[in-house]
């Protein structure tokens, strides 16, 4: 059994079988990460370039660690301080790197569709580490793994995605994944941050009242307010956002049930999540980070098929 795709550009292109295979494989890699020697020789012959045209800490470190745990050779590229600032095109940059015999490309770019463009023009396998406001597939996969561990199955699980839905590639990848795996989804946030077509496009509920969304759900995946992607004022102040859509201990305690809190990071403490929620036992935010390495190992391993390359 193998993946139906050569690249991991988005959850949109995956079948439910692909998603299950990735999650099952990630679970085996989680066991590897518990061993005295947390490393396997599977990708010893593979060279991977991490192309980060946009800032990242968690995702870049997570991918790098995953590559090293698989014994791959890695090269890191960040846009600042490279020839990109001299005006080199994306395709030229990548082709120059590939001529140094690189097998796989992990790429983050601020332009939606940048990895899809590359996939059409280069022979290497590409993993999307976040493209603009389109998708962030490995984040959705690690969210799925974390939810599966906590709740057993995604089938019928009630997930609320809360916050800046419009600018969030994490939300989009999660919506594709949860839909394919049979979870029930409600999106919640200020009307200005939820695209109008969303309810029909993804067959999800839209709820503008935070308390109602939390009362309904088993899991709340709280998104970061993406200040850097907002070029217009979509809510008045961060303080007002916190009052209407911030999750605090008092609100959680008043629900009368224990819901699971997730966040893709980095957290704006005091905006979408208060510290007494983010650091509580209900939060699985750090487990998400741990699962990130295992999920990325699974993606790299399953896409490293040399015969097709």
């Amino acid at each position, binding site marked *: 059994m193998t993946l139906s795709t050569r690249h991991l550009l988005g959850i949109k292109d995956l079948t439910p079988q692909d998603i299950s*295979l990735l999650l*099952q494989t990630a679970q*085996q*890699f989680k066991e*590897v990460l518990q061993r005295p020697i947390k490393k396997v020789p*599977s990708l010893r012959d593979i060279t991977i370039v991490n192309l980060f045209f946009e800032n990242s800490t968690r995702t870049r470190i997570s991918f790098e660690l995953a590559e090293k745990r698989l014994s791959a050779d890695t090269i890191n590229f960040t846009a600042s301080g490279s020839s990109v600032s001299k005006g080199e095109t994306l395709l030229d940059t990548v082709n120059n790197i590939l001529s140094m015999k690189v097998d796989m490309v992990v790429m983050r770019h601020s332009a939606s569709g940048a990895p899809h463009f590359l996939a059409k023009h280069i022979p290497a396998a590409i993993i999307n580490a976040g493209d603009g406001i389109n998708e962030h597939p490995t984040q959705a996969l690690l969210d799925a793994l974390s939810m599966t561990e906590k709740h057993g199955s995604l089938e019928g699980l009630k997930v609320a995605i809360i916050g800046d839905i419009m600018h969030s590639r994490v939300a989009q990848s999660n919506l594709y994944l949860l839909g394919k795996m049979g979870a029930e989804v409600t999106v919640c946030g200020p009307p200005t941050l939820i695209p109008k077509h969303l309810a029909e496009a993804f067959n999800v509920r839209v709820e503008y009242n935070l308390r109602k969304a939390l009362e309904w759900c088993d899991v709340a995946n709280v998104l970061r307010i993406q200040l850097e992607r907002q070029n217009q004022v979509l809510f008045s102040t961060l303080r007002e956002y916190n009052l209407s859509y911030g999750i605090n201990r008092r609100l959680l305690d008043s629900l009368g049930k224990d819901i699971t809190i997730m966040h893709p990071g980095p957290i704006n403490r005091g905006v979408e999540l208060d510290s007494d929620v983010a650091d509580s036992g209900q939060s699985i935010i750090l487990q998400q980070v741990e699962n990130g390495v295992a999920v990325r190992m699974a993606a790299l391993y399953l896409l490293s098929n040399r*015969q097709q390359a």
Partner: protein
Amino acid sequence: MKIILDHQQIELVIKRLAHQVLENHSDSNDTVLIGIQPRGIFLSDRLHQELCRYSATPPPYGKLDITFYRDDIRKQIHVPNHTDIPFSIEGKKVVLVDDVLYTGRTIRAALDALMDFGRPAKAELLVLIDRRYSRQLPIQPDYTGKTIDSIVSQQVKVNWNEGQHEVVLVDQ
């Protein structure tokens, strides 16, 4: 198709192998049993049952998957199985268990995988079927259920159907 071992013979062989392991490991505090995923697990499960029956202190039992250590990964990506070794193998005598020993490549991978869990005092190999003269690596079993002669075009199949285990030699 030729039957090499029928159900009753397999049960007898497993009992003998269990006794041989106990004979060589009188102090079972130092011994651990590790089955190789996926096909070795049927045998190691049965063997561990027998060891529990004959010994008051049966060895700890774990399962090892060798997918990430395979030498044919450049040709094909295999889907991994679960590894579960909930104890330390440091300084222990490890008995590796698999159903059929053929080229020896699985055992080579298993030895590499094993070393990532610690440094055992000793590693031994127990197999149900040893396909003689077909090794591609210098690996030999310490405990053998049955040794057979076969040619490359033949396949040894071990069926673990409930109450009807059998080992058959199939011409392809």
